[in-house]
């Protein structure tokens, strides 16, 4: 049973490159945490500091309430799966999985006893005598996981483990990782830049940018209540529409988009003095028909471009100076260059301060 805690973690490389800045996080036992962020955001560095592969420039890392800053990787009771798998090319699958146990001084029969069940669980038994070069990408990935699992560590670390696989295999391996985690229930930290992996795997997602935590939350929180504009734009595909607006108040708060007034029914952060803000709406929250919406906001726009993606259509439309993307079921009939009504789900509106980038609006409706 292992919890992991980061306390004010800093990483400064020579040349004053500040890669991780005041990173704080408490991870509960058995939790599946995903570090998500664009490349260079410090997510891998943070993981490697936890693994003991990088020195910690400042702060403390605790595993099971014990400071591990100065411990060797082997003493931290962790196991790691690398992006390139890092299998030992000269060893067979069996030897690869058994290597850590051999180093730990276990006898041949003890090693055999531990390797067999892991190989069975990962369906590697028929491949045990093969060398890594004779394996496919997915099989190598499983060997790398087997090597991590056989040591029964307290914490599993994954460093972009699926990014070398093709799309189809990535989906199935993702499911396998999820299933495995449910089965063995060990604390897991998983680094990726792929938001789909993050959304599907994580109990909680940690979004990082330039070495700083932008938001920590469940996938649902991150998606529906992004804390700031960066998170809002980073999560979701196609990306959220951002429209610069003027914020004003008469009987209630409202914003103007291209001369059209949208009333805000929820709570606007009153400390806000700036009237310039950015309105955020996800493409799937803008509808072409008002069918399913109880209290839609209506806005007019011209359809500029139309793309059929199979079950959905994606269209771009102009609203004054800004362009928005709309995703709708492909059963709807719209034509290019047509002026049409768009119906916006008010409970799905986001509003970000232009000064701080922080979210400043809470819609009334409770999210399902």
């Amino acid at each position, binding site marked *: 049973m292992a919890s992991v805690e980061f306390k004010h973690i800093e990483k400064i490389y020579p040349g004053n490159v500040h890669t991780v800045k005041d990173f704080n996080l408490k991870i509960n036992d058995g939790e599946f945490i995903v570090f998500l962020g664009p490349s260079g955001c410090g997510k891998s560095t943070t993981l490697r500091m936890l*693994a*003991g*592969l990088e020195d910690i420039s400042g702060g403390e890392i605790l595993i099971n309430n014990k400071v591990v800053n100065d411990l060797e990787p*082997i003493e931290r009771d*962790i196991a790691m799966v*690398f992006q390139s798998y890092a*299998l030992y090319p*000269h060893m067979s699958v069996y030897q690869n999985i058994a*290597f850590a146990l051999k*180093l730990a001084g276990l006898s041949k029969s003890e090693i055999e006893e531990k390797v067999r069940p892991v190989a069975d669980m990962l369906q590697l038994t028929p491949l045990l005598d093969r060398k890594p070069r004779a394996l496919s990408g997915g099989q190598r990935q499983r060997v790398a996981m087997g090597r991590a699992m056989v040591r029964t560590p307290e914490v599993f670390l994954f460093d972009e483990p699926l990014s070398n696989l093709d799309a189809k295999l990535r989906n199935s391996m993702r499911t396998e990782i999820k299933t495995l985690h449910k089965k063995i229930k060990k604390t897991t930290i998983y680094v990726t830049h792929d938001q789909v992996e993050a959304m599907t795997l994580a109990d909680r997602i940690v979004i990082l940018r330039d070495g700083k935590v932008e938001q920590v939350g469940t996938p649902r929180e991150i998606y529906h209540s992004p804390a700031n504009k960066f998170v809002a734009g980073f999560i979701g595909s196609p990306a959220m529409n951002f429209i610069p607006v003027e914020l004003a108040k008469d009987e209630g708060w409202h914003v103007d988009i291209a001369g059209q007034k949208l009333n805000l029914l929820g709570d606007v952060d009153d400390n806000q003095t700036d009237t310039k803000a950015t309105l955020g709406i996800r493409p799937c929250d803008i509808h072409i028909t008002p069918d399913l919406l109880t209290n839609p906001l209506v806005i007019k726009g011209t359809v500029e471009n139309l793309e059929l993606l199979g079950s959905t259509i994606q269209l771009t439309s102009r609203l004054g100076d800004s362009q928005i993307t709309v995703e709708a079921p492909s059963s709807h009939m719209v034509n290019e260059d047509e002026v049409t009504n768009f119906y916006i789900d008010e409970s799905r509106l986001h509003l970000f301060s232009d000064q701080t980038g922080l979210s400043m609006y809470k819609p009334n409706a409770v999210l399902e």
Partner: protein
Amino acid sequence: MFAMRKIRWGKYIFLMLVAGFVLVPMFATVLGGFKSLGELRTNPFGLPDVWEFEYYAQVFADGSIWLLMKNSLIIAFFSVLLTLIIGTMTAFTFSHIKFAGYKYIYNYFLIGMMFPAAAAILPLFLKIRDLGLLDSLSGVVIPQVAFGLGFSILLFRSFFEQLPSELFDAARVDGCSYIKFYWHVILPLSTPILATVGVFVLVASWNNYLLPLLVLNTEQQYPWTLGIMQYRGEYGIEWNRILAYVTVTITPAIVFFLFAQKYIVEGLTGGAVKG
């Protein structure tokens, strides 16, 4: 089409010329051992008119060749062993551990490559004498290792640096120290480069003449290269015996070279093209 064929012929002719430069003296050596002294003078390159086997027979009949070969073998074996052990360990340090001044120390090793052994004869002799290693095989082995280190460290280091760094990370997580990583991962993965360096050192040591001449005084210690001297008479040199002798003694080196050829090419070109 015609131009292509011309280029191909050009290549063949060029390669045959180069091969000729290497092979003609070799054949002349092998065949020379079958000729009488008179014939050797009139017909140095062609096939012998009369095949005389006595010179080859004499090389073996004189039992000293086995002792000479044994000495050569001992010197070569320890030169290779020490060069490989010290070279890999040093190169591993340079490729994996960054410490203050490591670049200077690395360059210091490489400068050794530019230093011709012949120029060091006098100081080397004095040093070996001071160390009390004169007239011992280790007096030959140690300087040979020292002169071979620069080149082998250069080759080893560039090979080690091509090994993915995640391999070391994985090994550390699995519980490897530097020594264990070196032993369990680096060395098994380095067979091509070990073979390359090993063959170079072996052949250089096997054919070394100057250093044994400088260090060794008693005939019991002589390697085969010094054994040639026994065929140099007061009034003349018996070339046919020397050629027979040389043929017999370089054969092991050539056989070994042919055997390890595949690895040598692999070791020298490894990493040049992503495999």
